């Protein structure tokens, strides 16, 4: 449902992505692995439109959305959980969620999605009047994911959702992502936590210096020499 073809982008004069290819199938979890500085976050931010593409193509359900600005991507059913959460800290949990349903696409289903979100994250219902900035790290990450669901997305890009969380919470986040897949969502994940993300993914890619050097089903990737060399040191 999401197809990225020879995507190029970067910051200023520094090119980060050098013709990156990627395909995400509907209803799956796809992970992009790679060392620090490989361009994983840049890839997600370029797909979402926060970083302007220099060349290549981004297709969403067959439609060319390469140069859509972020708000049009959200209106087309693609959203992002940004690295570092990017919540509205001095607004309440409810206000954060309601703002997630800003587009017409999301407004239509506001009540249903709110119910779904509260059933997925009961803690957010308990804290609905609390300010987002006063939540714990784990709760903030839950809220960031919940807010992205409020946009009524088909596909969610997730940038390091387990970053900075205690091990127990990391597992909780990965469980949540699996459950989102069960709800019918498609997820494109970027993670430092290789083993946990491979555990829940269907497909994986390895990005290195702005190029995809490997891609395939999870079993293929797990068995590949490249992964063993890079991550297991064998």
């Amino acid at each position, binding site marked *: 449902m999401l197809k990225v073809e020879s995507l190029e982008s970067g910051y200023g004069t520094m090119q980060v992505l050098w013709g990156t290819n990627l395909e995400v199938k509907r209803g799956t979890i796809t992970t992009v692995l790679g060392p620090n500085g490989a361009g994983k976050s840049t890839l997600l931010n370029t797909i*979402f*439109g*926060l970083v302007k593409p220099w060349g290549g193509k981004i297709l969403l359900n067959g439609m060319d959305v390469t140069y859509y*600005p*972020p*708000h049009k991507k*959200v*209106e087309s059913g693609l*959203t*992002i*959980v*940004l690295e570092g*959460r*990017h*919540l*509205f*800290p*001095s*607004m309440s949990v409810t*206000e954060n969620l*309601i*703002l*997630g*349903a*800003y*587009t017409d*696409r*999301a407004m239509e289903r506001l009540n249903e999605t709110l119910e779904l979100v509260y059933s997925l994250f009961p803690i957010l219902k308990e804290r609905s009047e609390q300010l987002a900035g006063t939540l714990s790290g784990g709760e903030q990450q839950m809220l960031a994911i919940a*807010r*992205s669901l*409020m*946009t009524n997305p088909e596909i969610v890009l997730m940038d390091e959702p387990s970053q900075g969380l205690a091990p127990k919470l990391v597992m909780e986040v990965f469980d949540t992502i699996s459950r989102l897949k069960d709800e019918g969502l498609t997820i494109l994940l970027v993670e430092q936590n290789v083993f946990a993300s491979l555990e829940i993914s269907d497909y994986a890619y390895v990005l290195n210096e702005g190029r995809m050097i490997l891609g395939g089903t999870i079993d293929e990737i797990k068995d590949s020499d490249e992964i063993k060399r890079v991550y297991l040191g064998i």
Partner: protein
Amino acid sequence: MPFFEQLAGNLVYGAILGSVYGLSTMGLSLIFGVLRIVNVGHGPFIMLGAFTAFWMFTLFGIAPVISISVALVLGLALGFVVFFAVIKRLINAPELSTLLATFAIGIFLEEVAKFIWGPDHRGYSWDIGSIDLSITLIPYSKILAFISSIVIAYLLYMWFQKTKLGAAVRAVVEDSEGAAACGINVGRIYALSFAIGIGLTVASGVLVTLFVPVGINPYMGHEYTLKAFVIAVLGGLASPWGAFYAGFIFGLIENGSYTLLGTIPGVEPFSLTRFVAFSLLLVILLIKPTGLLGGESK
């Protein structure tokens, strides 16, 4: 006790003037909060509002209180023009570029104003009587300015709190990338906020004319740029409401200190009030660097 009567009178006057200070700073804070751009050309927009009031009154006999809406509409339009002509290209530019650009816009407006209207002071008198508070005499025109400021600030507050678009502006202030992830058209919010900020500033210029004894001229804005910066910092820089309250505080300090300084023999109080106001600013910033009313600033 004449001293206390004088002090009380000046404090009342300070509160009234402070409301106009507050209103004239809200636009600066709003623009900084949303776009992270410091509008160094703030004062000249106040000057444009002052000339709007002047011409509306002298040509058509329209009362300043009514000219506020005219100035607001003109300011909104001008805000959109300036945004799309200049500011839009500078959203993620280094600070120096935005400082220079807004400084240039300010000078441009002043010079155009001088070219059209000349450099001389002009004034008008809108005399609708005064109310005697026994301690001091307050013209009704200034009381109307006071009420107008509060009404405008309150309406803006309600717009921010109760409307969807207002919530979107608040979201962009708190985290623009987070807002984009929610599907908010951040570029449009930038344009709208800039236009509202300029609209408020031009509108406040109308009220300023009721407080300038020497009249208005194209260069009158500088004083207000300076004061607006002090007030904005007092109010926590990014918060229009902080700015509004800080305007009151600034007005009270400025006028209160006038009375106190007057009791010191050999001191000419008027030239020292600004010194006192800015000294107090320094002290407050030393104690609370985020501004008197500011929470965390990013």
